[in-house]
Structure formats: structure tokens, C-alpha cells
């Protein structure tokens, strides 16, 4: 996997169990405990959605559940904060393009 820090002068990153989920139908590997947004960054994916009005690419800003910039479609549910959602085996994650339908 790309983008993982293996050695750090202060922190210990112990290797965790890997989890596989699907991003736009493509299989992506993550570590247990990763947020969806973090796992995507580890795989080099920064564009989390396209804005509903201008179709601009958007990613996260705060990564801690405040800015609502990272909304994605997770297991069919739109407007989910991908920075606060833990990856789960087999989870289906898609970039959100619209505002999401009211079911």
C-alpha cells in the first residue's frame, strides 16, 4: 500500500489487520480503524466528491467531522462524512456527485 508511514521517531505504527473495501467498484486495501477518507488518502485518492452545482472536485478540509466537505456515498447512503466513518470489510464507497436523494 502507498502512502503509509512505517517508521516514525516518536510514534509507533503497529501493523494492523487489513480490510478490503470498494471505491467506485474498485477494490482498495485499508487498515482496520482507518476512516474511509484516511484509507483513500493512503491509496493516493484525494477527490472525495464532485460539488453539486459546479461539479468541482472536492476533498476534505478538517478531517475531524466539522467541515462537511468530505461527504460521500457509503453503502448507498449519500451525505456520509467519510472522515468519521470507519472502513468495514466489503464496504461500498462512491464519490458523491449530487446532493443525495431523500428516500
Amino acid at each position, binding site marked *: 500500500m502507498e502512502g503509509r508511514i512505517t517508521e516514525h521517531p516518536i510514534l509507533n505504527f503497529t501493523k494492523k489487520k487489513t480490510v478490503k473495501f470498494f471505491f467506485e467498484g474498485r477494490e482498495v486495501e485499508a487498515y482496520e480503524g482507518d476512516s474511509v477518507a484516511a484509507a483513500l488518502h493512503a491509496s493516493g485518492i484525494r477527490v472525495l466528491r464532485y460539488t453539486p452545482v459546479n461539479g468541482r*472536485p472536492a476533498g476534505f478540509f478538517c478531517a475531524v467531522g466539522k467541515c462537511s466537505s468530505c461527504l460521500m456515498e457509503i453503502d448507498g447512503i449519500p451525505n456520509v462524512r467519510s472522515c468519521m466513518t470507519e472502513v468495514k470489510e466489503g464496504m461500498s464507497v462512491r464519490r458523491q456527485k449530487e446532493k443525495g436523494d431523500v428516500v
Partner: protein
Amino acid sequence: MKTYDAVIIGGGPAGLLGALTLGNHGVETLLLDENAEIGGQLVKQTHKFFGDHEHYASVRGFEIAKKLRTEVEKTQVKLSTSSTVIGIYPENTIAYVRNDQMEKVRYKKLLIATGAMEKQLPFINSDLPGVYGAGAIQTLMNQYGIFPGKRFLIVGSGNIGLILAYQLVQAGAEVRAIIEALGAIGGYEVHSNKVKRLGIPILLNHTVLKAIGDESVQGAVIARVDDKFNPVAGTEKELVVDTICISVGLMPLTELAEQAQCKISYIPELGGYVPLRDVRMRTTNPDVFVAGDLSSIEEATTAMIEGKIAALQITEDLEKIDLEEELNEELKTISLFRSGPKSFKIRAGLEKMGIKNSKIEVPKVTSFIKRIEDGKVRAVIECDEEIPCNSCESVCKFDAIKIGKNLNAKPVLDPSKCTGCSLCMLSCPGLAIFMESVDTVTHKGTLALPYEFLPLPKVEEKMWGMDRDGNYVCDVTVKKVIKSPNKTNIVHVEMQDEFVDMVRHIKFPQKESPFVCRCEEITVEEIEKVIDSGITDFEELKRMTRVTMGPCGGKNCRMITLGILSRKTGIPISELSHGTSRPPVKPVEFSIFLRRDEK
């Protein structure tokens, strides 16, 4: 619906200290936190905190979170993590979501410690992926262990921006620059010194105009600004970066306080809109208290003390017991923390709320002679700003460092008492203490410095000595490497005595030299070295370095190598031997040399 005596929203430093205090007094308490792991922003802080030892000075943020969590878990406080509060309704009702379920609880007393979020900075393409808050970078890097990018521009030179720059280098990333719109660095001097000696430029009076990129950041346009913060035409510069970090301040998250009927007011000195509260953290709703960054953007230490003050007052309210002595003690401590020159904004903001917090004159300590040159190792303290921290004084067993009652005072060293034990260097959160010794007979100087990078150098290894601005001073030799349990390792390096006062950082020698030979990956420097050792014959040079002997057969590199040889020896190329060309002149499979029927 369950009613708790006390509910706390937010498990950062303020909320955790509130929970610990309420738990210790046996108050039935529920703590709600949105994250899976409690600790707020402490969990991603890898630096040692300032303050005094009672308030976890010299302990790294994520370790403070761990300690507090363990303490709170020993009490009866109910911890509910992954619980997102979505609103506060009439009759003291809190609604929160946990495991996709809506839950409701009631409180008698409420402590809101929701903290703050990072301010946005609008510029062209600031919505592009790769423009992130500094805290987001810390979350990715220090919590998840993920590289958020390779090359960084940091906007804002407050403590968060400075700390982030240092942490990025620790993780192995490159920081191109820190830019600051004001004419002075915002954060603590010891933090900016840590960054400067790494060679990271801090550009004052600069702003970011534009992020470059289609789907993600690929660069940034910065420019100088005039004294009205308008960009100066013609000063635009393009930087190749893949991530732009915004650290231009925090703003309190007041929504829940507003819903709990607390009056809020705009006080920019405290971070923007803040709930009005008294000195004991009680808001305009007598049942609701606030603490931490929500009440004013400050440090974790003051957040912890505020959490404790609020919890003590809540306990007094609920249990009808007298905690005045303890409360007054905490109130005294917090005003001491806020009495230094760096807290002037907080004091001004609190005054607008009717809370007096006088500036206490920081006493000047008699200064001692600077250095005794007798070859013995002694501390050199480079902490020249009045900040609330007395860690070095507390750890010194020989009474050699004086700060005094007001922890904002600058430390002063008495070299005649210093034994060079290095405890102060290990504990200093600002990494501002060094150990020096000079031998006037041999003219050798030794410098011990704190080193928090990987890999650790080896004994007898040659390294570069860098000055306070990250410039090369001289070569140094590593003499001792001491691994420390608190991860501030100590490296002793030896150099000529006159440089000891100049060197403040060490770096592995980095010599960039262009490649001559693409096949065998040989640089100009390597070829020059061999020529300097006395090899002036081209054939000999080939055998020594393998230049021209790769798959291209010298097509790429022969002329360049001959050029170097000619320049170094003064012999024209026409008079140099140019080697022998042997087949095959193109790379081919060995099997073609065999007859068709051979195997």
C-alpha cells in the same frame, strides 16, 4: 429518558479534566464524544507540552490523552464514544446519534467542551483537494500514519503551523515554506527556532493567492502583501507543492451552547463568537458551563484548568459542598498561566466579558556569567521569550536553573552549578537547551543536542553542522548517541571549538550531483573523485567506476566523461584516449549468439 446529574459534551483536554474532577467527587456523569477514541485533539499531538509538571509539562500530547483516559476510566464516569450530539432541546434534553441510532438524555448540569475548528482562508481554488487544515494533516499523519502529501506549503506561522512543519519533517516530508501575512511570526520563538534550523524558510508579509491544479493541488502562487494585506503586484512566486496547509487560526464551535440558551458574543480576541461566561465558566444559562477552546482559543493547559474549574463549580451546585479553597487555587493558577506577555489577547478578550485577569509583572532574574571555559559540559538555554513553562527548572537537581514563582519568567542558568547532566535538555518542550563544552588546549568543542529524527546517526559518523537558520557551518563528528525513553534522543558531536556556539542542528551530508551515466547511475562527483585520486586514463576510469560500460555502451556518457577528464587534467579531448568499443553495440539477448539448434 435517563437524567444524569452532569453531562459533558466533548472529550478533549477540557472535557476530560471536567470528567475526572466530577468522577473524583462521585457526581453521576456522562461524557459524550464524537470520536472512537477519547482525547480530542491531544491524540494527534506528538510534541511535548509546555507548562508545569502538575499540568503535564514535557509530556507529549497523545500521552497526556492516554494518561487522562486511564484516570477517568478509574472513576464512575460513563464514557460514550462515537456519540455525535446533534442538538440540545428544551427541558435539558440532549439528542445524540450512536451506532446509527438516535439517543436522548437529560442533564441537571451541562459542561460543553466542543472545542474549535480551523478557520477557512478563501483564495482561488482553495476548495481543491490538497488544501487542508493543519489539523487534518496531523490527523492523517499522526493518528492514521498516512502521508498526506510530499511537498508542503504552510500558511500561517502560529504555533500550529510551526509545530506542523516540524512534525512533517519528522515524518519524512518536505516543507517548502511557511508564509505569514503579518510582519512577525505568530507562534512561540522556541517553536520557530526548531523549524528555522531545519532550513525551512518563514516568509513574513506573504499570502497565498492561488492553488494550482485540476483535480488536486500541484502548486501554489504566493505573493508579498503590503501593510494593508493587499498583494503587491510583481511579487508573485510559484511553488511546486502538492499540499497547502491552512493554519490561520481556530474558531470556537458554539452551536450547541447557543441551543442550550447560552448568550454568545463576538469577541475576536478569544477567537470570534464565544459564549458569555463568568470566571467559573458558568454561562448565561445557570445550568450550563463551558470550557476549553469553546470559551476562548488557548492552549491545552488552560483548557484543562477551565474544565476543572467548571467541574468543581458544578459539584458545588449539585452536592452543596464547599469547594471554595480548591476553586480559588485553580483560579489563581489559571491567572498565573495567563499573566505573561503572550496572553495579552486573552486578557483583553476576557476583560470585555467582565473578567479581570491582570498582567503580573514577570520578575527579572539576575543573569549570571555566560560561560566558563574549563572544558566541562554545561547547558546553554536559548529560551528568550516569556512563555508559561518551567519544566527545566523543575527537573534540575542542582538548582542551576532559576525561573521563580511566575512560570512566564525566562529561565536563567547559573553555570557554576550546572553539572551538564542534560536532564533539562531532555525535558525542554521547546528543544531550546543544548550542552556545550570547549577545550581551550586542543581547540575541540563538543555540542550535545536534542534529536527527534530518524535514522539516528552512528558514532564516528561525519555529519553536517547546521546553524540556527539551517545553513551549513562545518563538518561534525558524532561522538555519542543516547537513546531516550521520551524519544528526545541526545547526540554529542565534536567540531572545532569556534563553531560550537553556531551549530544547532545536524544533518546527514547531502550532496546533489548530476548523473553522467544513466545505465550505471554514476554522478559527476563520483567521476571527479576518482580523477582526483590520480586516475587520469579513460580506460582506468572506466574500470574504476563502470562509466560507459552499461547497456548503452557509452553512447550517453562517453563525451561527458571525456569532457570532465579534459577539464580536470587540462589535456584536450583530442589527445585523450577514448577507449575501445566492443560488440554488441545494442543490448541483445545472449541466446542469439548460439546457433539456432543449440540450447
